């Protein structure tokens, strides 16, 4: 039997996936980061510092909330939301940023760079840079800047420089390319704060470690509330940071079903989607091997999702591994179903979710009715939807005043 908590191995591999596929300029730095990260997570002082910021700055623990009206609407399982949208900055991204910024400071770096899709990671990075007085540069696809204007302004208010990337498809992958180019150019002064559970080792493990607080809290809260673990956990997946954060403490609990939801865009058969596991194949991108969407020549393919945060042709390497091992079941949700879930959540629960977790909810709305009432589903509501109101209004043909 696979013991999932034993992964990754010391070279950063989850089975066939992961590794450190980067150019030589970056190798010495990620080797140094890897050593520092492993030393720090073994240190009680580091955990104490992390715990301090989690409690007093992020506002953790986040509630585990029973979405009663949505549960009644579905007429099946009890649906619970892990309310990570209530975190400071409005998403789960801050969990990882606080952890990595503490490491960057220990490395003596004065300048932080980041990539962002929906802007949530960019905002969280700009926030922790303001908190510690560090210079911050965020790369963001020009297309994403257009659809996430509010977050661009938030980053600028926080003192960050936002650089539009118009190369390629002008989305998250292109922002990541440009951040990597910046990093090799300024490797001495600069720390690259990757937001998703991808990139070269140790990033996928680091992001998982800092996001695992989500699943740790769900475990504690479930035992206190239900006297047992939940039956099913559901999370949306772009690169997969919120999902791995929720899942990781449960990977070696075989009775808990884990479900990841990819963006099916306009439909898996249309070619307009971002479902790397359903429609991708083995490849290497942005420092790790994983499933990626690519063409017959190994060129990275075009992706589409209404959600900028899920619009990425790859997926974190650990998800590829969990998919092959069948430990996590991966499904998908279309733009249209996510939009319907977005509106339903607002109207039934008084919570406006981000478009990313609306994909998870779109799946839950299909899944919950098939389950009995004593079945407990915990869905990670990993971000709030204020940033998305323009995109949603446009998709619904509504003119905002």
């Amino acid at each position, binding site marked *: 039997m696979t013991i999932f908590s034993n992964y990754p191995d010391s*070279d950063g591999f989850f089975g066939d996936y992961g*590794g*450190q*596929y*980067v*150019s*030589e*300029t*970056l*190798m*010495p*730095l990620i080797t140094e980061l890897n050593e520092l990260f492993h030393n720090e997570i073994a240190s009680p002082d580091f955990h104490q510092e992390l715990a301090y910021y989690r409690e007093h700055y992020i506002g953790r623990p986040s509630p585990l909330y029973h979405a009663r009206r949505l549960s009644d609407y579905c007429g099946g399982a009890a649906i619970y939301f892990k309310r990570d949208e209530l975190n400071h900055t409005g998403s789960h991204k801050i969990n990882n940023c606080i952890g990595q910024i503490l490491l960057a400071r220990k490395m003596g770096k004065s300048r932080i760079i980041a990539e962002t899709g929906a802007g949530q990671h960019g905002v969280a990075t700009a926030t922790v840079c303001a908190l510690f007085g560090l210079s911050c540069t965020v790369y963001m696809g020009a297309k994403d800047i257009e659809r996430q204007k509010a977050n661009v302004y938030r980053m600028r208010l926080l003192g960050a420089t936002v650089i539009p990337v118009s*190369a*390629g498809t002008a989305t998250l*992958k292109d922002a990541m*390319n440009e951040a*990597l*180019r910046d990093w*090799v*150019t*300024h*490797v*001495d002064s600069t720390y690259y704060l990757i937001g998703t559970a991808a990139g070269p080792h140790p990033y996928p493990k680091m992001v998982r470690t800092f996001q695992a607080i989500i699943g740790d809290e769900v475990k504690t809260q479930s035992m206190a509330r239900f006297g047992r673990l939940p039956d099913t956990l559901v999370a949306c997946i772009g690169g997969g940071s919120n999902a791995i954060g929720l899942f990781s403490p449960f990977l070696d609990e075989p009775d808990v079903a884990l479900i990841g939801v990819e963006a099916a865009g306009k439909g898996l058969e249309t070619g307009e989607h971002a479902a790397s596991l359903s429609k991708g*194949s*083995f*490849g*290497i*991108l*942005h*420092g790790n*091997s994983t499933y*990626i969407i*690519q063409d*017959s*020549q*190994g*060129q*990275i393919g075009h992706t589409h999702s209404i959600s900028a945060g899920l619009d990425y042709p790859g997926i974190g390497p650990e998800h590829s591994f969990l998919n092959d091992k069948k430990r996590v079941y991966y499904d998908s949700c279309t733009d249209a179903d996510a939009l319907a879930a977005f509106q339903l959540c607002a109207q039934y629960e008084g919570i406006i979710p981000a478009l990313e977790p609306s994909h998870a909810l779109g799946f839950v709305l299909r899944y919950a009715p098939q389950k009995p009432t004593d079945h407990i589903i915990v869905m990670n509501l990993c971000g709030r939807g204020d940033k998305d109101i323009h995109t949603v209004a446009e998709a619904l043909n509504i003119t905002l005043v």
Partner: protein
Amino acid sequence: MTTIQQTFSDLKRRNQKAIIPFLTADFPNRDTFLRLLYELPNSGASIIEIGIPFSEPMADGIVIQQSSHIAIQNGFSFPRLLADITAFRRHNTVTPIVLMTYINPLIHYGMDACLQDAAKSGVQGMLIVDLPPEHTNRCIQKWHGLDSIHMITPTTNDRRLAIIQEGSGGFLYYVSVTGVTGTQSANATSILPHIQRIRTHVSLPIVVGFGITGVSIAKQMADLSDGVVVGSHILKPFLTASTADYGTIVNEQLMFIDEVRHHLDTV
């Protein structure tokens, strides 16, 4: 002795330095690329480096990004490139060819088939930008006679030099700037101590690339090393030119390499 080793040993005997032009395959179009490939050796190029275009060129500056993009739009295909190299080999048997690429297109083709087919078509070396020596054994079982070329950068420490040296053949590619291709000029004063340090660890020839933007910088770098790689500087004029001007630009770039050869050979 491999063909690349033979090339460096011949150069040394003649007291010459290597000039290694970098071409993005099928850029600005296939005909122009092939004309450069066929004629550069006559202008003094010692080895030709051919870039396999990848849609996500993370280590490259704007010139090679755009050239890669155009090559892909031109319908670049790896099997067709190998067929073109096979044809070139009927015409030129002495100038080594090194393929430079990111790993994903090779993985997609099948790594072993890729190396075997490349070797069969007349390629001598392979430089995979995002495959560090630590992962080479995981991805490659057999080199099929190809030299594995690695990069060394200003950030490479002594521990890594040892790892890189062990997995390397042909020559070492010293990246003269921390950064992407074609964006800034190399600086001889800052590079000298690095090259001297590397020399104490490795016996392979060292060539300097990234930031070789003109004749005088090429001369300075060649004086410190065993040769220079010139990439973005050759490709850049094609980006803003119309198709009708490609022929003229090819002639200018051949003259440029000729001039570099002349300067490098003048003591």
